């Protein structure tokens, strides 16, 4: 009994102890859950959930033809943890040499020894973050991943990657300045800057929770803000034209060792800018880069290209006619204390010519004399006329950084007696190249002045958000009779004037050269070539203008400096290229050429119905004496077709080989095989020779060879 009591007692004791333990656990659980619970839950939430920004993808910029002009590409900052738990001394030391060699050869920024030292010291100092290289491309990252040590994997290799998005221009420097950029705290440039609000999109934000394995999962509590990706922009730039423009500009700039230059190609009817290139020389070398948008930004003295506007105003006021005569005085005329000179002295022409000729020769004396004759007493009228063209107002372009024009005003302190004559030939006022082009474009566009546009449409996920239609700035810059005269003058410049080197037989160019002196500190230095600005502005084809273009070459210092030889060839090259690739631009071949081609007509002999069908489809008339014959022979002579009947089938039935000459292969083979001959055919075209003579007899199964040509 004692023993039994003892056991029971012990059991109770054990039971009590275990129960107490259980109760203690329950109490503790309760305490943790409900007393400390709030604190722990908060801490848990902080560790595993957070508001995270979901970055919006910036929109792309496309060329007119769908090529990518600008897009976002990921770039990577790579660093290494050289003290991971799994990276043993053996592993590290075995790979360090080869890794240093690889890194050095990939990035080429540090010597092998430097990389070696960098990694070695970091390892010895117990560092866990060594910067290897900033913003490397995806391609380089893939190579890097296969380097010794790094290829051992995330834990042994210790590679740390941080991804950033950067703007990438697939065509590199093509229209780089016009595509531009938008960065924080920097003046916006180009399309990226102008349409930043569309391109950028809106970053989203969401409450995310971290699950095992480090994956962030959105918590669906309705407060999430979805990111709005940026819109895409389709620009008006045509990559092929842009390419030609930039290439030929670069070639000419190098040839003439010029300081900088620019080109714009515009569609006459819509004002769409198809190509825009701006190149600046770097230092004194022969490398040129897009550094500044001269086309829109550089407001400067236009020089001779301005003469068109002077004459436009004068003709519009009814004061001047292209047939008026003017004495060029041997290319020199004195106004007050200054001498106006012509660029070239041509003795024969330097006397009395008409205004049209003075313009074609780009005579400063001629144009300034004509303008002064009529406006010296009323300069305000001249300036008002110019302002009606809008040259005193900027174009208000969408892309930022437009240069402001400056036009002198009579009655102010800086209006002198010499201002008017020099103004009439493009000095003493400033305007941007694009402004000049806009007015020339208006002349080409029957007087309708359209605003230059860089953007065609804004789209989002392929859906149209905004379409940019042509904007008419001025429905008529002048009367149609003035316009006609102006265009005749511009055509004359290329036909027999200063730009006759641009003349060609395929299509006509109309335009105006300019060779302006560049003022430095208010002085024009005539001696040095480097102080000239050569330009050419015009449109083509002259009779039905489709495209207008301006070329400016600034400070050419080698191989000539006149507008026709420095800027002209660039214009010509672009025009040639554009003309060759524009399907609609070339006039149809006229009827005489078509007739000439008809004379070489050749029609194969063959099945009658087929032949008639072909004639019918091509709308060709023929004289037929074939009657109901099912086979015909055709003869073309002097563009009349005569068709006569024949019957090779019947001859074959009689066992005689017919004359198959000029018959088409299909019909010939049909006939012969029906007569159980074995036919082999060589060449293509109509039958020229046959191995069995016409009129000879044949046996079934005999072989006949037909030669076609």
């Amino acid at each position: 009994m004692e023993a039994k009591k003892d056991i029971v007692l012990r059991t109770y004791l054990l039971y009590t102890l275990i129960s107490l333990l259980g109760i203690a656990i329950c109490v503790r659980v309760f305490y943790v859950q409900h007393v400390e619970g709030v604190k722990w839950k908060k801490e848990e939430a902080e560790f595993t959930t957070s508001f995270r920004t979901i970055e919006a993808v910036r929109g792309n910029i496309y060329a007119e033809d769908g090529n990518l002009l600008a897009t976002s590409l990921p770039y990577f900052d790579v660093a290494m943890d050289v003290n991971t738990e799994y990276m043993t001394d053996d592993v590290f030391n075995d790979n360090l040499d080869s890794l240093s060699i690889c890194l050095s050869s990939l990035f080429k920024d540090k010597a092998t020894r430097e990389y070696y030292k960098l990694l070695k010291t970091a390892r010895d100092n117990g560092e866990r973050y060594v910067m290897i290289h900033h913003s490397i491309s995806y391609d380089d990252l893939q190579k890097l991943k296969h380097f010794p040590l790094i290829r051992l994997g995330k834990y042994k290799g210790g590679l740390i990657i941080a991804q950033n998005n950067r703007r990438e221009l697939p065509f590199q420097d093509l229209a780089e300045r016009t595509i531009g950029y938008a960065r924080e705290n920097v003046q916006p440039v180009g399309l990226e800057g102008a349409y930043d609000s569309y391109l950028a999109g809106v970053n989203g934000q969401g409450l995310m929770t971290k699950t095992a394995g480090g994956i962030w999962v959105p918590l669906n509590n309705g407060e999430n803000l979805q990111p709005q990706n940026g819109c895409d922009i389709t620009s008006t730039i045509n990559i092929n034209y842009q390419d030609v423009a930039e290439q030929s500009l670069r070639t000419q700039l190098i040839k003439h060792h010029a300081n900088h230059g620019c080109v714009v190609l515009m569609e006459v009817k819509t004002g769409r800018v198809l190509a825009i290139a701006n190149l600046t020389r770097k230092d004194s070398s022969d490398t040129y880069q897009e550094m500044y948008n001269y086309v829109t930004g550089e407001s400067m003295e236009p020089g001779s290209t301005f003469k068109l506007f002077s004459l436009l105003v004068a003709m519009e006021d009814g004061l001047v006619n292209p047939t008026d005569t003017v004495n060029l005085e041997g290319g020199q005329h004195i106004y007050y204390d200054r001498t106006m000179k012509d660029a070239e002295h041509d003795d024969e022409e330097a006397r009395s010519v008409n205004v049209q000729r003075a313009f074609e020769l780009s005579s400063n004396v001629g144009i300034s004399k004509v303008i002064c004759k009529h406006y010296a007493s009323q300069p305000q009228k001249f300036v008002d006329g110019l302002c009606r063209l809008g040259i005193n107002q900027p174009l208000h372009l969408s892309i930022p950084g437009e240069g402001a024009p400056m036009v002198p005003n009579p009655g102010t302190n800086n209006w002198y007696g010499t201002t008017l004559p020099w103004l009439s030939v493009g000095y003493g006022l400033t305007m941007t190249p694009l402004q000049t082009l806009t007015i020339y474009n208006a002349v080409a566009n029957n007087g309708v002045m359209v605003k230059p546009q860089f953007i065609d449409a804004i789209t989002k996920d392929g859906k149209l958000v905004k379409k940019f239609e042509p904007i008419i700035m001025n429905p008529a810059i002048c009367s149609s009779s003035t316009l006609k005269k102006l265009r005749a003058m511009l055509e004359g410049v290329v036909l027999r004037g200063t730009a006759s080197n641009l003349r060609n037989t395929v299509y006509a160019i109309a335009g105006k050269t300019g060779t302006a002196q560049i003022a430095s500190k208010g002085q024009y230095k005539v001696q040095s070539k480097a102080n000239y600005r050569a330009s050419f502005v015009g449109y083509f084809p002259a009779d039905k203008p489709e495209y207008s273009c301006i070329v400016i070459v600034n400070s050419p210092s080698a191989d000539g400096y006149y507008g026709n030889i420095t800027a002209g060839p660039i214009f010509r090259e672009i025009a040639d290229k554009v003309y060759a690739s524009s399907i609609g631009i070339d006039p149809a071949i006229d009827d005489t050429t078509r007739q000439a081609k008809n004379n070489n007509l050749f029609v194969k002999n063959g099945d009658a119905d087929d032949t008639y069908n072909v004639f019918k489809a091509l709308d060709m008339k023929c004289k037929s004496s074939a009657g109901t014959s099912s086979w015909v022979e055709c003869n073309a002579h002097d563009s009349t077709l005569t068709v006569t009947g024949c019957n090779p089938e019947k001859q074959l039935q009689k066992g005689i080989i017919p004359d198959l000459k000029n018959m088409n292969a299909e019909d010939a083979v049909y006939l012969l095989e029906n007569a159980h001959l074995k036919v082999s055919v060589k060449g293509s075209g109509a039958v020229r020779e046959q191995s069995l003579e016409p009129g000879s007899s044949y046996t079934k199964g005999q072989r006949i060879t037909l030669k076609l040509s």
Partner: protein
Amino acid sequence: MAFLAMIYIANGYYAHSRLKDLDSLDNSIGELRTQYIIAKDKLMYLSKESELDKATTNMGLKESVIPPEKIVVYNKSKKK
């Protein structure tokens, strides 16, 4: 009860592994898109006319500056 609990746990694991898959697929989409853009980028640059010109001069090919002749078909039946 125990059975239901097991199903519940298994379901939780399953869902989690799907999330993991999703995440890794997302990553590979991103990577493939990058590869695509980079490849396209290179192709576009190389197919630019001046680059083509450089590449084909050795082959004796030159650009034509003569506009092509066109054949215009007037469809009489559709023309009113």
